[in-house]
């Protein structure tokens, strides 16, 4: 694409096309957007995060990531759309401008680059990283079971051939460790939103234990408001609740770790498939999916901004 204006948001893109998009967006918005490399993947690909900032140093921040499970293509595609939306709405939408005048936003669009490249090249159904496990012919670790929160407990598999294999130890996956180091070094992230697909859910901690999170009431209320905003656009029905109550026990998950780090507003989205296409959501649904999800994200970001802690 010649610019982010001519970029086609209504089709799925390869890793290279998404990385080119990022560079275009930075070039077009040097005052607002910068690209940070937080590490390299197992196969040596750079891992990029877009930073949206209007100034200040180490401001309170909001983290959004998409594509940690590589086959969930509508999430990376939505992440591209969010990036463009942020640059379009800053200075136009009063509520969003107030947020970005006081907070930074970090957006990691392709959180599992090796897996994503593999879905384009070899196996469209691939979900995990592409790391090798010594002593096993099977490849990859589930990056949403590899975090240091209930790691290795029930709700993940110790079998390297399983799609929910947790890895040899917490943060064994460089794609996970890079985020852990970034979040730890930054130290001022106030909301952490990890986006998956599919099944229309908005989830908050915990996944590894049925113990209610100390902030459950507030998180539940905020999830309800966010889901209401999302559904208002196209009527897409969402359920919300804690991971373990709403779907199943999942140990070593992203938001259980971020919550344990004191990031109160920790959420996982499971975006649409409103039909019967599962991970193979038609590209025609990318923009509607991104638009409705953005309303929920705005609700969470606005609440985070107005409830400093």
């Amino acid at each position: 694409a010649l610019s982010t204006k001519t970029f086609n948001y209504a089709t799925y893109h390869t890793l290279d096309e998404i990385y080119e998009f990022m560079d275009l967006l930075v070039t077009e918005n040097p005052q607002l957007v910068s690209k940070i490399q937080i590490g390299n993947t197992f196969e040596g690909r750079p891992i990029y995060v877009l930073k949206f900032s209007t100034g200040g140093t180490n401001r309170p921040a909001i983290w959004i990531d998409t594509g940690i499970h590589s086959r969930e293509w509508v999430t990376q595609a939505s992440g591209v759309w969010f990036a463009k939306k942020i640059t379009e709405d800053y200075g136009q939408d009063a509520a969003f401008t107030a947020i970005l005048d006081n907070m930074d936003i970090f957006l990691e669009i392709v959180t599992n680059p090796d897996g994503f490249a593999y879905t384009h090249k070899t196996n469209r159904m691939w979900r995990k990283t592409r790391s090798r496990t010594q002593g096993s012919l099977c490849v990859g670790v589930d990056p949403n079971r590899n975090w240091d929160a209930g790691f290795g407990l029930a709700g993940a598999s110790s079998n390297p051939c399983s799609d929910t294999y947790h890895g040899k130890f917490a943060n064994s996956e460089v794609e996970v460790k890079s985020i852990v180091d970034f979040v730890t070094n930054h130290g001022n992230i106030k909301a952490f939103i990890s986006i998956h697909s599919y099944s229309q859910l908005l989830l908050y901690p915990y996944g590894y234990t049925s113990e209610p999170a100390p902030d459950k009431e507030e998180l539940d209320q905020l999830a309800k408001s966010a889901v209401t905003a999302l559904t208002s656009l196209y009527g897409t029905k969402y359920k919300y609740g804690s991971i373990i109550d709403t779907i199943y026990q999942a140990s070593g998950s992203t938001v259980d770790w971020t919550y344990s780090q004191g990031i109160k507003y920790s959420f996982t989205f499971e975006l649409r498939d409103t039909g019967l296409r599962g991970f193979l959501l038609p590209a025609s649904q990318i923009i509607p999916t991104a638009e409705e999800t953005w309303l929920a994200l705005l609700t969470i970001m606005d609440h985070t901004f107005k409830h400093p802690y």
Partner: protein
Amino acid sequence: NENFVGHQVLRISAANEAQVQKVKELEDLEHLQLDFWRDPVRPGIPIDVRVPFTSIQSVKVFLESHGINYEIMIEDIQTLLDEEQKQMSAFQAR
């Protein structure tokens, strides 16, 4: 690129906890190479599973023999993948 010709995705409706457990038994049979898109959780929540062509017959017999309802959510994965690729190539060509 891996070929998914004949792979189907079944949407299973477990009527009770016993049926959920039955489906979980399937999950442990590695030779079937099942890929659960939505895990067996509890009655009333759909279970979506990709079944390779070679395992379809035995999975369907298993479900039917236990009276577990299912529908074919995706008849042939490869058809959808071809469609997706065509859409992406059409865009790139443009």
